[in-house]
């Protein structure tokens, strides 16, 4: 487990980054808010004062850390509502997309890696390797737009953006569209149509965001699996005449997946956040990612700070979780 000191240092580091980095960016919120009227120095000063942006930077930082440690991230400069409230409303959309991406990445990436490892140096292996390389190096933004162009515009198979067809007026109960559309209120009005529409809308963003994780899982599984397949106990199992599939699923995969879980899990969280920011923006997905982008444009400091801090905590927690999972999965660590 992560030691407490390290944890605190990391958190402190995150607060420093969250607070200072965004302030290096040109443009300030007051000018963005009051537009050309920022040219009126009196009004500018008033707004600056109201938002406490006229205090020394370090004083602002101390205030931020003090409040944040008590769980208060302040209020959005743009909407005036508390950052927690604003973020809470947006997490479900991001989590929904994230879960879909995890499922797709595991369902596609791991089997692809296994197949590539079994058929090493075959055409299939090469295809999977090249495919994963492409998937890995494809810019998310570009991929999203290409997928929209191909699947929505040219083939007409998927909607362009959003979470649900506008024909369905679903009031958010849980915030998870796939659940909300299955609630009695929704099914009474639309049957399962709204649910399928939500699934339908989930398709392209999931594909876009999953490209990198799929590639990573495939490459890692292949490497790890290849190594395991060369181990003595697999050769022994083969010599004993066990069925090939049984060897792979029962003996090899379990061991091969260990490093995949550790590295993959960590990688997933960081790439999911980066991916979510871009993907949500492209697809008009009302989650935390697009909210962060909007806040950066508006230089909404409290929201950016709060989001970075929360994401930092999330990464630390995932790190710990993955550590734990590794211990459970690896018999040698269970002592």
């Amino acid at each position, binding site marked *: 487990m992560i030691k407490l000191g390290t944890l605190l240092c990391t958190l402190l580091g995150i607060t420093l980054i969250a607070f200072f980095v965004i302030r290096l960016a040109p443009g300030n919120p007051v000018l963005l808010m009051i537009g050309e009227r920022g040219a*009126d120095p009196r009004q500018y000063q008033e707004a600056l004062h109201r938002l406490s942006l006229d205090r020394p930077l370090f004083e602002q930082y101390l205030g931020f850390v003090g409040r944040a440690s008590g769980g208060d991230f302040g209020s959005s400069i743009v909407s005036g509502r508390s950052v927690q409230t604003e973020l809470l409303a947006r997490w479900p959309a991001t989590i929904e997309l994230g879960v879909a991406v995890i499922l797709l990445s595991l369902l596609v990436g791991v089997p692809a890696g296994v197949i590539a490892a079994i058929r090493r140096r075959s055409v299939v292996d090469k295809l999977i390797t090249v495919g994963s390389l492409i998937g890995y190096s494809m810019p998310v933004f570009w991929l999203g737009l290409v997928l929209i162009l191909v699947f929505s515009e040219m083939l007409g198979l998927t909607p362009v953006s959003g979470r649900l067809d506008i024909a369905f007026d679903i009031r958010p109960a849980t915030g998870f569209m796939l659940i909300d559309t299955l609630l009695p209120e929704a099914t009474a009005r639309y049957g399962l149509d709204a649910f399928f529409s939500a699934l339908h809308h989930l398709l392209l963003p999931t594909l876009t965001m999953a490209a990198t994780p799929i590639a990573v899982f495939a490459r890692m599984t292949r490497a790890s699996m290849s190594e395991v397949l060369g181990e003595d106990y697999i050769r022994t199992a083969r010599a004993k005449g066990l069925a090939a599939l049984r060897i792979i699923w029962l003996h090899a995969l379990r061991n091969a997946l260990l490093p995949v879980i550790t590295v993959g899990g960590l990688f997933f969280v960081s790439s999911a956040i980066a991916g979510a920011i871009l993907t949500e923006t492209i697809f*008009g997905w009302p989650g935390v990612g697009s909210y962060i982008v909007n806040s950066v444009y508006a230089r909404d400091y409290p929201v950016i700070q709060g989001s970075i801090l929360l994401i930092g905590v999330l990464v630390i927690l995932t790190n710990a979780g993955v550590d734990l999972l590794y211990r459970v999965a690896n018999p040698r660590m269970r002592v």
Partner: protein
Amino acid sequence: MNKKIAPLLAALLGAAPQLSHAAPADDTLVYCSEGSPESLNPQITLSGTARNATTTTLYDRLVDFAPGGSRVAPALAESWTVSADQKTYVFKLRRGVKFHKTAFFTPSRDFNADDVLFSFNRQLKADHPFHAVGGGNYQYFQGMGMDKLIASVGKIDDYSVRIVLTRPEAPFLTDLAMPFMSILSAEYGGRLQKAGRPADIDILPVGTGPYAFSSYLKDSTIRYAANPQYWGAKPKIRNLVFAITPDASVRLQKMKKGECQIAVSPSPADLQIIRDNRQLRLSEQDSMNIGYLAMNVEKPPFNNVLVRRAVAYALNKQAYVNAVYLGNAKVAINPYPPTMWSYTDKVQTYGYDPVKARALLAQAGYAKGFSTTLWTLPVSRPYNPNGRKMGEMMQADLAKVGIKVELATFDWATYLDKVKRGEHQMVQLGWSGDNGDPDNFLYTLLSCDSVTRGSNNSRYCQPTFNKLISDARRTDDAKVRSKLYQQALQQLSKDEPIIPIAHSKVYRVLSARVNGFVVNPFDMDYFAPLSYQNR
């Protein structure tokens, strides 16, 4: 098992027609907007995004801008009279105007004077029960100086209101047409107060506009329903949906697929594609702004009018429009665009002419040119998206006539501050007007008062010009004002303290099936006149 999966797969692949994302029915119009409004009350918001989501959908004002321009037309006030001293305005209010009946509010009475008092006093008076609701920041109201201009708002009877000003101000009527002067329901306010939920007034809005609020799903959709009792031309489309779509290329894809019928701000790179697409139409109009180069007339050599004219001739403005605005702007000859009333093109113009520029410089005694500095805009603004690039082009143009230019810039706050103190020689700046009155440009940017107040960036103070715009300010006769402003523009073009560069354009992408759309220079869209063409 397979039987259960099959329809799911079919749906995912778009094979099941009833689930498809086809164009909406004729009674629904989807408007692809670029972002989420920060609030649904135009009194407390400043952004263009919030303006479109509230001002022209949900609310009306006492007066409004006539379609496509900046002239003032009656709205909730049918008529008005102004006292001889220009300080007292009496408005006759329209009768029979209904507030929205929504899921959360049923009005018991029509719109009347109480609603005007409620809406204005909320912003004006610190002791108004709703003043502090939602933070109490009425930035536009205060920024426009309304708190100092309006002495009182009083009720004469249920259908007439008296507004007393502290001093005459001709543009006051146009100020009333601005979004922050929207009229909210006093009855609704009272009920919310009783229920202990005053903050709802900005979240669950009730107005008199052509559309009533249905629901808002953050960052996703805002739904409006037509107001069947609207006092003006009844909205022809029953459901209006704002589909919040931040990415410009995605908005265009949605237009192409028919998922939305109007999209805001297309990407400059896509304009030609839109023009070429027969399903789509591109609407464009000069917006109410100006990007300009100001020369400090207090400092030599710019205190010499010949030098200023020479600089004006030396700059290839069309080249800047092409390279800096990517063609999305129009070369300017005046401080405000042609959509503004009182505009005239009968002014002295300065086309690109380096030979003339050289001759003028020689005449002014600078045959060998001179050296100077030009400050380039450090931030991207609608009126000038890339100050640095424009600066480099200006530098090259001026070098051709012998003027050696050094470029400099500072962070935005410092930049404004230094300009205010008159430390500059040449400086790029601009202005976005928002009430459609010439005064909003000429007085703010070029009057003698503004030199000390710090918004006259050329520090130009010329008696003839200043008298013209001051006289125009003191009368409310539009014809007289118009004439005075035209004369002022002519005087200004002779003195050329600022060189107008460009008015950027406002674009909308429209489905070819949408009728009745009128572009508005303030970037506001009116929804009531919209209709669909029959297929």
